[in-house]
């Protein structure tokens, strides 16, 4: 009877296609919105991952996210270096500074100053030039794919920034000596790298300018023990890269409303999916009620008919989900190629699949109620 149910389902191509597309649309909505949400959450941690060599980040205990530049004392570095088990510790400066491109275009940049001696904390890869070029006077490096976008000079020449161009940061010259590659960042402001010392020169004068100390532990050192010692010695917070990413993601998702908005979109996808699938499956069952009545009169029990409706619902759920997931993945590729946030870890398809199955089960249950309540005597009504 299951094959009969399938033939009933797929026989009317128009209705079947409509049903599949409805469910595919719901799956697409859920997959796409959930993937964008995950993508955005992932992007919030891109800076931390890009500088992923440290075992611990030492920071002010009020830091809420990776670009929340709260100053800590310069002494922190020395205190951390003095703790047993610490292999090395380097300072990092980070701040939002005003800059001006050669044509006069004003722009706020995130200036990151990395350790002069070791250049630890730099971007994960260089496209043009070398990280060592940061030791050249007034040198900065910018992200390669932002030259023609965020560093586009629209006030003169209509061209992107190039290596060799001189921009100003906080009214001081900065020479572009190279370009780097890195993950797409959640933050709009471009990240410009320089050395720690030069970073402090660019920065407006403040009593304390260091923002982070990046710490590498010696092999075999107990992380928790080292963390406790660092926190005790500095009075600051020490977090692993993963923990720092989580702190950042939690803050941005919760404080910006992204989680609520995208969560709502995912929920709406589920609701729309349930309504669309429910309406279509219900209509499909209503259209076939006469035949279910005939089957009932001919001796098909309720369990058999329930099995048929459930099989129909599950088949459209699986196929519709497959179509929606395919379309979602393709859209994701397009969106990803355009540099927008889209990330689909295995949890997203699993979650979307379960959501669609639940959608269709709810829809099927509504239809099943009608089938169970159906009096077989209805077959004699013309």
């Amino acid at each position, binding site marked *: 009877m299951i094959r009969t149910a399938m033939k009933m389902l797929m026989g009317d191509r128009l209705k079947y296609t409509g049903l599949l597309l409805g469910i595919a649309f719901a799956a697409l909505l859920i997959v796409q919105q959930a993937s964008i949400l995950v993508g955005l959450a992932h992007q919030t941690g891109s800076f931390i991952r890009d500088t992923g060599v440290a075992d611990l980040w030492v920071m002010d205990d009020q830091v809420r996210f990776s670009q929340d530049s709260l100053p800590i004392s310069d002494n922190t570095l020395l205190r951390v270096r003095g703790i047993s088990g610490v292999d090395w510790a380097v300072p990092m400066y980070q701040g939002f500074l005003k800059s001006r491109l050669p044509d006069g275009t004003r722009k706020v940049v995130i200036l990151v100053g990395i350790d002069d001696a070791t250049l630890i904390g730099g971007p994960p890869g260089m496209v043009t030039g070398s990280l060592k070029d940061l030791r050249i006077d007034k040198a900065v490096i910018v992200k390669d794919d932002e030259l023609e976008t965020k560093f586009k000079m629209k006030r003169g020449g209509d061209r992107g920034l190039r290596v060799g161009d001189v921009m100003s940061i906080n009214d001081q010259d900065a020479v572009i000596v190279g370009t780097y590659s890195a993950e797409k960042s959640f933050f709009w402001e471009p990240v410009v790298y320089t050395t720690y010392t030069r970073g402090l020169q660019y920065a407006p004068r403040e009593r304390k300018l260091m923002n982070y100390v990046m710490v590498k532990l010696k092999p075999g050192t107990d992380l928790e023990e080292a963390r406790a010692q660092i926190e005790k010695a500095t009075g600051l917070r020490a977090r692993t890269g993963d923990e720092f990413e989580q702190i950042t993601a939690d803050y941005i998702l919760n404080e910006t409303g992204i989680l609520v908005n995208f969560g709502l979109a995912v929920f709406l996808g589920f609701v729309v999916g349930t309504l669309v699938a429910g309406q279509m499956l219900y209509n499909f069952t209503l259209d076939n009620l006469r035949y279910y009545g005939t*089957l*009932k009169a*001919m*001796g*098909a029990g309720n369990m058999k008919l329930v099995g048929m409706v459930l099989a129909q619902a599950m088949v459209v759920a699986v196929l519709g989900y497959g179509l929606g997931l395919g379309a979602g993945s393709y859209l994701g590729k397009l969106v990803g190629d355009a540099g927008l946030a889209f990330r689909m870890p295995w949890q997203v398809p699993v979650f979307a699949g379960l959501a669609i199955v639940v959608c269709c089960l709810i829809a099927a249950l509504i239809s099943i109620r009608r089938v169970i309540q159906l009096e077989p005597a209805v*077959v004699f009504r013309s």
Partner: protein
Amino acid sequence: MVTSSATAGTMNGQGATRKLAVHCKSVTKTYGAGGAKVTALRGIDLDIATGELMMLVGPSGCGKTTLISVIAGILDRDAGECTVFGVDFNTMSASAKTKFRGSNVGFVFQAFNLIPTLTAAENVAVPLMILGEGRSAAVKKGKEMLEKVGLGERYKSLPSQLSGGQQQRVAIARALVHEPRLIVCDEPTSALDHETGHVIMRLLKNVALKDDRALVIVTHDARIFGFADRIAKLDDGEVKSIQTPEEMNIGVAK
């Protein structure tokens, strides 16, 4: 007042002793309640024997469809006795009733009720699949049954590709394929022209009707009365008379 010219024991003037297929005594059925209460059957007495083609006739709303539904076990009576091959549906559980119906009752409907997305052979095979027979074996038997009703070459056709008469022949094949002992037909010819109606009735009379099987046909198509062994006239929920076509001065059709 019921008048009957024959008993369940001796039918068709053949003098042969036949089994009682359907026995109804004082059957009543009411729909609704209070002011909306409608009494559809008011003490129906009716016996139908195996090998007999019984027609239930009468004006619209007289209770024909209700009676055939009670006889077929798809509607519960309120009171009275009604047995089909000695089985009283009212004493059975819903699932037992469904199972009994699946094995023992064949249905032919006015609007055919063929599943539009199944081929003719698949439609015919449905009762067998309901009874648990494998799909391929059921469809094979469906094809064989279609040959018996003269539609062997159209086994792959969808209902929409068949004429009304052909669809009704498929429906008859579906009603017969699982060898039921009772076949109930609701207005089997009313959607068909005169000639096709006669073809269908000949099929029901000559192929469907057997010594161990009874046929009950609800109709108000007077053109086919001649095919009946007996005709029960219903009015206002009561059997007013039971007569043979000869007694009604209707030519017997073959």
